[in-house]
């Protein structure tokens, strides 16, 4: 539809889609990073909360012979099985250890040659309170090189780190929004000045401020979609490419896919939210300017 105020020909209108494209792209990446991080933290929480890993023959026990090591490991597992608050204790087999080490050593590494410690996977009873230090002391009485890894501490640190990164991303997104809003206000003000005559004629034949503001609103919408839609497609392609590159590295502790479909939807909503913000901004900027006229 042809507009009553010919905003589309303004010079300022030409730069806005590029600005929006850049901002939407950056905001899309920031959002994707935040969502991926949340996904990873959730996965680790799900898998690791309520578990401990006990290591036998680690630092301080490297000199043990394989037979002694197996014997001590079995003893430790037995004690763990009797400890209150522990639901089960299971000694990991060589293949499982190999799988755990694959991210660091690559698949098919010959582990038999390496003096590896034994690992016991411990499942805690719900709400169990286990003092890792106390447990280490008790187990050290029957085995050497004992180490109790409490994932909860590690997870808490990791979660704190993830929260800080999220806060930073949020800050970046807010800043991006601020820059976008400033751009839209600038374009609206320029349009008002440039088309003052046309706007005066519209007023004189009975147009309300809202009618004129709607023209700017629609204009902002078109410019935003024009810049935002290709930009988010590019951002999605970037995320997908990083995903593929990540999978090419082989097994990692990261989720196989960085984003779930819900999160993809959130990503695709970025240009729509940007467009809504731009429309509201244009409307408010125009109404406020017009209200200042006599």
């Amino acid at each position, binding site marked *: 539809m042809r507009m*009553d105020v*010919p905003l589309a020909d303004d010079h300022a209108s030409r730069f806005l889609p590029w600005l929006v494209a850049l901002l939407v792209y950056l905001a899309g990446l920031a959002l994707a990073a935040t969502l991926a991080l949340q996904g990873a933290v959730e996965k680790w929480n799900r898998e690791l909360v309520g578990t401990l890993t006990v290591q036998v023959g680690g630092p301080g026990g490297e000199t043990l012979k394989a037979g002694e090591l197996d014997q001590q490991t079995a003893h430790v597992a037995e004690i763990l099985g009797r400890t209150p608050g522990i639901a089960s204790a299971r000694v990991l087999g060589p293949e499982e250890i190999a799988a755990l080490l694959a991210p660091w050593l690559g698949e098919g590494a010959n582990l038999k040659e390496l003096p590896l410690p034994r690992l016991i996977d411990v499942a805690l009873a719900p709400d169990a309170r286990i003092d890792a230090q106390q447990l280490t002391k008790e187990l050290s009485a029957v085995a050497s090189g004992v180490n109790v890894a409490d994932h909860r501490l590690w997870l808490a640190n990791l979660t704190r780190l993830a929260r800080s990164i999220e806060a930073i991303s949020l800050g970046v997104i807010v800043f991006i929004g601020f820059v976008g809003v400033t751009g839209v206000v600038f374009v609206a003000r320029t349009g008002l000045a440039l088309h003052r005559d046309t706007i*005066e004629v519209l007023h*004189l*034949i*009975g*147009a*309300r401020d809202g009618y004129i503001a709607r023209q700017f609103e629609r204009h902002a919408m078109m410019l935003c979609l024009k810049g935002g839609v290709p930009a988010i497609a590019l951002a999605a392609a970037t995320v997908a490419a990083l995903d593929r590159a990540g999978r090419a590295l082989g097994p990692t502790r990261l989720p196989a896919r960085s984003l779930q479909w819900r999160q993809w939807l959130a990503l695709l909503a970025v240009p729509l939210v940007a467009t809504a913000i731009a429309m509201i901004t244009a409307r408010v900027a125009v109404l406020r300017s017009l*209200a200042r006229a*006599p």
Partner: protein
Amino acid sequence: MAPGEPPILRFENVGMRYGMGPEVISDVSFELKRGSFHFVMGESGAGKSTLLKLMYLAHRPTRGIVSVFGHDMSRTPRRALPPLRRRIGVVFQDFRLLDHLSAMENVALPLRVAGSKGEQSRSHVTELMNWVGLAERMKQPPHTLSGGEQQRVAIARAVINRPSLLLADEPTGNVDDRMALRLLYLFEELNKLGTTIVIATHNEGLVARFGHPRLVIRGGTVDVVPGGAGGTG
């Protein structure tokens, strides 16, 4: 009209200056009754356009009271102006057509602004374009039309909404006498249907021919001169 009916336009001790300049008109007082037809006369620069601008609410007076449809402009808030302006049709001296729209879209603009749409208004626009003799030029943008053609587009836009008050600033300045007469007959028709009309013009011959009362601006003041002989023949 019924006695005691409020005037459609009332000026009371009105003064108007642009910025810090001298008063263009001072101490102007008069009333226009509903359904009346007036010519505004005066030399170039006398203040005809200024007077009309006050009537079509482009400016508020520097002093005094301008009252339109019974609304005192010094007390009418901005947001109350659009409904009043929709009842006023204006032919601007410099036309003020929008160049990025076609002639037809320009004519339809007051309808669009007022929120009416649909088939009925479109046929109304076509009918009016026919009437001013621009049916074949409807799709063209104004800057491809001659001065007289643009003037007729401006007139069509001013009357499309069936205004109760029609203000025309030199509406026949760019057309030949035959077309000028034709346009004045259009105004005459509208007047018979109840539209109050004020036309600023230099064209003494035309004014004499129609014999309507005149608002004569001289030295910044306005005198109302009653209509003389002539009639509408």
